[in-house]
């Protein structure tokens, strides 16, 4: 399923237009009813003006051919000059108005769609994110939104304008000389069919171009990131050869795309000239016998060539709708996706009822005690999509203030326990209880305000160090931030940065080392003053000396706080109140450091492997220290 969702480059045009889908998107423009009304009116005015100009020309020519030479030129021309000026001004005014309106509608529709999708993304559970690469989501939020709003705004314009021009021309011609009009209009279906045929093909091949193009971008990004590896293995030549294949395909696709476009326009213009020839051949005979005025003939010839433009525009929009349908489905899918995790209806009702009212001291917004006491996992099982269980019938009771260490092999389920505790995921069976209450009956915002997590791969935002630490508690003072940094031993390196706390860390913290990022995200967690602290390999990339400093700080930090520590390093684990050895989704052993060692089981096995030093050498080390 995932592949289907993600494969946007190869999905072709939809077979037919799903109007329901587009109506929903079009509803976004109805948020601006006045602008939309003016917009449509302006498009009609412009279409009408476009139709009107050949009529003015016709009138002037007929007047001059019929007029006796003694009539004053001014006398003869002024009505037409006036009409022409009027039509011109209507045209220019209309053009200004509709571009202006489109300029208001298009960015706003894009903004609104994007905002709805973004707001929903903030609610969707991590399972949703697990299935979709972030780059894919970014593309939906940026290029798809732009593309759809473009289609909506300019599409409405082109269709309204096109329909007006086409019906205007048809009406004018039928009114002027209906038989000749029918003869000329015979070409319209042909023109429409050919236009649609070409437009679909052009859009399809441009999709192929886009597909290769995104692969080229990906190749640049990957090769650039791996340039040291490529150089290290001296594999430049193969890398170039792979890349050259991509650019060759790109050139072929692009040329094919350009050739289709290059054939299309001449074909359409030639069909237009066929209509013109027909108008001349048939109409000329009418003129010759006096059944048709010369001005009318000229108007017919002008119309014959003018007709192709709206047909072409409307066909292009129609083809675009078919091609963009997948994008429309994707973005509406994002907006519609129901969060798997969120406040239950009961909780929401309580929260709504309590809004604006003062709540009794010691109670949270959801009406239950604010502080967290005992935490219990009861028969908790968990598996990711259709996967094997990561956690199976897991039971654990944690008393307030306890430090629980989780150790064991990678993939054993340690991080899953942390994720469940944060309610990033919910148990697939069993329940997690805070003071006896299932946490699904409590407010999500309340839970998140109570805990802080430090991740192995720390994520920083592109602001300053200060901004990043403050993310933990938005109203933290600079002094609070400094204190937190000092506590984790990050003060020294932060002070050495060019602007200290105000140094910008770059996108994703790119200007800092992994260890430094870990320390800052650690400080961010501390500044939040959480009741529950979760450390998921929080200091794995920090060097030994700093690790020592952090170790000392931890004693202060963990004191009196319920905490969960996932770590490989023995030094981090051994002072925990309780150590759980996790493997294959179960607790294999538990107890404190002493007890577990005495057990001579997995724990013992894990940690006696830490030292590779022979006994004698270890003793020598002792002597040296003494």
């Amino acid at each position, binding site marked *: 399923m995932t592949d289907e969702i993600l494969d946007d480059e190869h999905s072709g045009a939809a077979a037919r237009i799903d109007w329901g889908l587009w109506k929903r998107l079009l509803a976004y423009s109805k948020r601006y009813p006045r602008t939309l009304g003016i917009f449509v009116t302006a498009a009609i005015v412009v279409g009408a003006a476009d139709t009107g100009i050949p009529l003015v020309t016709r009138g002037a020519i007929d007047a001059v051919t019929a007029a006796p030479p003694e009539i004053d030129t001014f006398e003869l021309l002024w009505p037409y000059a006036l009409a022409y000026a009027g039509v011109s001004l209507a045209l220019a005014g209309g053009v200004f108005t509709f571009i202006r309106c489109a300029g208001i509608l298009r960015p706003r529709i894009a903004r609104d769609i994007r905002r709805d999708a973004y707001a929903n993304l903030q609610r969707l559970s991590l399972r949703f994110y697990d299935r979709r690469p972030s780059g894919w989501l970014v593309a939906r939020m940026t290029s798809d939104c732009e593309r759809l709003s473009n289609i909506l705004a300019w599409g409405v314009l082109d269709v309204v304008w096109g329909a007006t021009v086409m019906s205007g021309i048809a009406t004018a011609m039928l009114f002027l000389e209906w038989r000749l009009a029918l003869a000329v209009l015979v070409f319209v279906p042909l023109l429409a069919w050919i236009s649609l045929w070409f437009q679909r093909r052009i859009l399809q091949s441009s999709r192929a171009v886009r597909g290769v193009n995104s692969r080229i971008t990906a190749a640049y990004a990957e090769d650039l990131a791996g340039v040291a590896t490529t150089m290290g293995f001296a594999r430049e030549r193969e890398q170039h050869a792979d890349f050259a294949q991509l650019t060759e395909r790109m050139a072929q696709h692009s040329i094919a795309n350009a050739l289709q476009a290059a054939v299309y326009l001449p074909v359409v213009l030639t069909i237009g000239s066929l209509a013109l020839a027909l108008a001349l051949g048939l109409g000329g005979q009418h003129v010759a016998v006096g059944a048709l005025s010369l001005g009318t003939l000229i108007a017919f010839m002008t119309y014959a060539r003018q007709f192709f433009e709206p047909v072409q525009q409307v066909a292009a929009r129609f083809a675009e709708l078919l091609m963009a349908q997948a994008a429309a489905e994707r973005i509406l899918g994002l907006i519609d996706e129901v969060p798997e995790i969120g406040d239950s209806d009961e909780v929401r009702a309580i929260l709504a009822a309590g809004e604006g009212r003062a709540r009794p001291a010691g109670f949270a917004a959801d009406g239950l005690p604010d502080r967290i006491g005992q935490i219990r996992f009861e028969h908790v099982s968990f598996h990711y999509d259709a996967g094997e269980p990561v956690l199976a019938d897991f039971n654990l009771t944690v008393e307030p203030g306890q430090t629980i260490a989780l150790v064991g092999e990678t993939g054993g389920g340690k991080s899953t326990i942390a994720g469940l505790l944060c309610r990033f995921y919910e148990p697939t069976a069993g329940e997690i209880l805070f003071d006896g209450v299932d946490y699904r009956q409590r407010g999500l915002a309340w839970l998140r305000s109570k805990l802080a997590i430090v991740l192995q791969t720390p994520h920083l935002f592109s602001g300053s160090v200060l901004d990043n630490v403050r993310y933990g508690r938005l109203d933290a003072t600079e002094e609070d931030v400094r204190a937190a940094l000092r506590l984790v031993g990050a003060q020294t390196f932060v002070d050495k940065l060019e602007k200290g706390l105000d140094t910008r860390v770059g996108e994703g913290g*790119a200007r800092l080392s992994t260890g430094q990022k870990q320390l800052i995200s650690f400080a961010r967690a501390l500044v939040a003053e959480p009741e529950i602290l979760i450390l998921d390999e929080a200091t794995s990339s920090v060097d030994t000396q700093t690790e020592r400093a952090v170790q000392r700080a931890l004693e202060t930090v963990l004191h009196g706080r319920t905490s969960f520590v996932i770590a490989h390093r023995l030094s981090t684990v051994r002072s925990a109140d309780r150590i759980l050895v996790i493997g294959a989704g179960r607790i294999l052993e538990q107890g404190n450091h002493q007890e577990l060692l005495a057990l001579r089981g997995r724990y013992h096995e894990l940690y006696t492997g830490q030292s590779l030093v022979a006994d004698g050498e270890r003793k020598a080390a002792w002597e040296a220290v003494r």
Partner: protein
Amino acid sequence: MTSLASESTAAGRFARHRTLLELTRGQRLRYGGAMLALWAGGLLTLGVPLVLVEPINRLAAGDVVPPRVLWLHGTAAVLITAGAGLLTYLRGRWAAQASERLVEGLRNRLHRKLHELPMSWHDRAETGDVVQRCTSDVETLRVFLAQQVVEIGHAALLLLTAAPILFLLDSTLAVTSIVVIPVILVFAVSFFGRIQKRFTEVDEAEGELTTAIQENLTGVRVVRAFGREEFELERFDACNDLFRARTERLLRLFAIYWSLSDVLCMTQMGLVLLHGVARVHAGLLTVGDLFAFIAFVGIFLWPVRHMGRVLADTGKALVSISRLEAVLDQPVEQDPELDQTLPATVRGELAFEDVTFAFDESTRAVDGISLTVPAGSSLALVGPPGSGKSTLVRLLGRFDDPDRGRITLDGIDLARLPRSWVRRQVGLAAQEPFLYSRTIAANLTYARRDAGADELERVARDAALHASIERFEKGYETLVGERGVTLSGGQRQRLSLARALLADRPILVLDDTLSAVDTRTEAEILAALERRRGRATTVVISHRLSSVVAADQIAVLDGGRVVQRGRHEELIGLDGPYQRLWQIQTALEDELDDDLQRTAGAEIAQGTPEGSVKP
């Protein structure tokens, strides 16, 4: 961006115009053909109204025009249109072929260039920015090459060649027909000149918005953990609305431009119509000629209005080319004249002689380091971050060259050997390794293409990775990265190690490769490496002393200098940083030892479990 600093100088501008011209080298014939076709097509289009002049005039005069004549002229109009269409097609074909081939060459050139640039350049460059240049700027150039190169001068050329026809028909009306055109031209050019800044503003706002979204999505765990959804939404709203506001402002300018431009164009057409009708009335012009004039003006006006766009795109292309040149003109890694025959076999004896290197003026990353590593032996580098360990490794792979001193391999100065050859002697496993988003097998064979499945398995076993790989559904064919499985930090490191082992090169470098590997696995790997002892000269960097105790030689670095050197047994006996480091790391182990002894009673009852790794 510094590369854009010189933009406004006249000389710089001229130079870039020349580069733009030089860019077309190799495809000039096609471009010439395309320009010719465009011009000829434009001229031919003028023929359509011209063939209609005669029948209209005869009809106006009240002649009895035989249908045959009407059909004949009608057919001529169709044929001329088709002929002009053929020329239009040829123009499109040649322009597309020329531009796409040029861009293909440019893309390949950039890709090659990126692999020739020195590592010091890559360190400073921001990946996002470079990718942007290689894609967006190339795209801007592509649009320019595909569409605008041919258009340059088209309007002028068409006007110049068509004007005589107009003057032949009626010189007075000819003047009227072109009188507003210069105004339209000036208006178009000045508008697109001014609007440039607005375009940049929109692009910037879009960039900020994309970054904001990107950061929010990649940091989703952090956002959720701190319950910052509202805060994020506010931050997003600001970016989102800024982009909206700037787009709206740009489009408002377009509304003004197109409507004013329409007024001017309509004025031009209106003047021709009214003046023409007046002249017809005065008997100075035939109706057919008037028809031709009106049609001509319609044909002229489009390229004239389009001129502003051509110039605007040219301006953008000039900016893009200067951004690309900032990459293309960077000096590449130079290999000196080869005065050294390449050694047929490499033993792997390394010597650092007074090696000094500084990334910038202020501090030396490596300061006078001298070390000798006999072939097949191992050297461990320890020291605090920034002490110069990784810099030494870079110098060893000739990603940089020492400012002073030299590094020799089997007695030959590396600086006298080709870089790619030097790099082929070194197998590197990194702390944060780069993996390609291909299969595990493909990532491994990157080191040696001809390696068989059994060899892959062997190195994976040595790197304690085989069991993990086997657990994946597709085993060695498992895709790594965004579209495949996400490997843990330790797994990535082990894969990198396996890759380096597969390369089987005279020198093996482990740059803190086991930092994310758990201690038990580390023990397995170290045991495997021990079995390979002597096979390659090994350089190990590690913060974990367990990884370095077995080394033949340990060098403790600090501030770019060697502060201590010796075997583990020697160093722990000396008062110094190594000893202190050792104490810190062993204190715990010894406490563990005590713990073990204290719990020894339980051991007797339980017995030693099988499969534990013995010290």
